[in-house]
């Protein structure tokens, strides 16, 4: 009744579903700010509220994504806005951009290859393998890259989230355990593996940790964008 009434008018549906999404997200952010738990990620929280809600009112994903298209369109300018942290870290990058690029290129190549091969071996679905191999970059860029390579971007979004949580919750302890203690090394490792979620946790340790983490987060996104369009098709050929 109410649902059909709303869905029958495209503009009303857009307004209603976009507002519901924003409101739920705001609520989730407020909860995280209040309790400060890392695992209380606003995006995860919002999705776990909205999925049962959509199932309950019998709206399928296609209808939902059509009505919230505006949020998806804003992804592009949002990525451009990430130029500000990049600009703020220029000084940092200048000192050792060669070393950092080399290290990150190596790390990214290894992680894409390992995740792609593991996924093809265990799950045997190329669009899932593509999604999983692009999980070590910040979410908006990961989604854009996955769509470019015809992977499944909703899997990417989730994989990025889980990778972020793993790295943020266990990463610092793991790095200390294997004897990696400098702020630079910890920052770069967590920033490239766990992007924004990891960075948010690391800033609490020291400003230097946070600075290197954000450098790694942006630099590894750019490098992944450069590497993945030829590395992934190459890996795909192995399975043809």
């Amino acid at each position, binding site marked *: 009744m109410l649902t059909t009434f709303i869905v029958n008018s495209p503009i009303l549906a857009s307004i209603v579903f976009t507002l519901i999404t*924003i409101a739920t997200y705001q609520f989730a952010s407020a909860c995280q700010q209040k309790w400060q738990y890392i695992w209380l990620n606003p*995006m995860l929280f919002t*999705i776990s509220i909205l*999925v049962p809600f959509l199932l309950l009112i019998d709206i399928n*994903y296609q209808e939902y*994504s059509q009505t*919230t298209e505006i949020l*998806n369109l*804003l*992804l*592009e300018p949002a*990525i*451009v*806005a*990430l*130029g*500000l*942290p*990049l*600009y*703020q870290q220029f*000084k*940092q990058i200048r000192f050792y951009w060669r*070393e950092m690029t080399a*290290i990150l290129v*190596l*790390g990214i190549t*290894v*992680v894409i290859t*390992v*995740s792609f091969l593991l996924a093809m071996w265990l799950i045997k679905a190329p669009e899932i393998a593509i999604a999983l191999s692009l999980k*070590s970059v910040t*979410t908006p*860029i990961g989604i*854009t*890259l996955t769509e470019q390579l015809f992977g*499944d971007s*909703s899997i990417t*979004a989730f994989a990025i989230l*889980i990778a972020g949580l793993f790295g943020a919750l266990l*990463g610092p302890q*793991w*790095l200390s355990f294997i*004897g990696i*203690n*400098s702020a*630079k*090394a910890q920052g*770069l*490792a967590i920033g*490239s*593996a*766990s992007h924004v979620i990891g960075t948010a946790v690391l800033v609490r340790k020291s*400003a230097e940790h946070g*600075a290197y983490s*954000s450098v790694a987060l942006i630099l590894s996104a*750019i490098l992944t*964008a*450069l590497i993945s*369009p030829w590395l992934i098709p190459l890996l795909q050929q192995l399975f043809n």
Partner: protein
Amino acid sequence: MKNVLYTIFAISICLMLGKLANYLLAALPASLYGMIIYALFLQLNWFSPDKITKTNQWFIKHMGVCLVPAGMGIINHFQLIQQHGIALVVIIFSSTFILLTVIGYLSERYLITPDNIKSKTPTGSR
């Protein structure tokens, strides 16, 4: 309000140039070209960093909401999660730890700070 419009203008211009770069050069997605161009223009002071910082930080703080629709696609994948949930977690977990170890180890070993630079390392940025 003026700064908000200024920021939107700056970002739009850079996104447009990014689209152009993507059309001419391919390689990177348009939005990433836009991001690099934006950072470059701020560095060159063609756009004033002071004017855009506040609005821009607000954008970054709230950009997560733009990712929700993409993540909602999981609604079509219940079967996949039922079938391969453990495999998915194992793949994500192991590759994340391999990446942490590789990058951590290499940077501990090869990023050596000369003393004269170390004291100048800028701090305080987020």
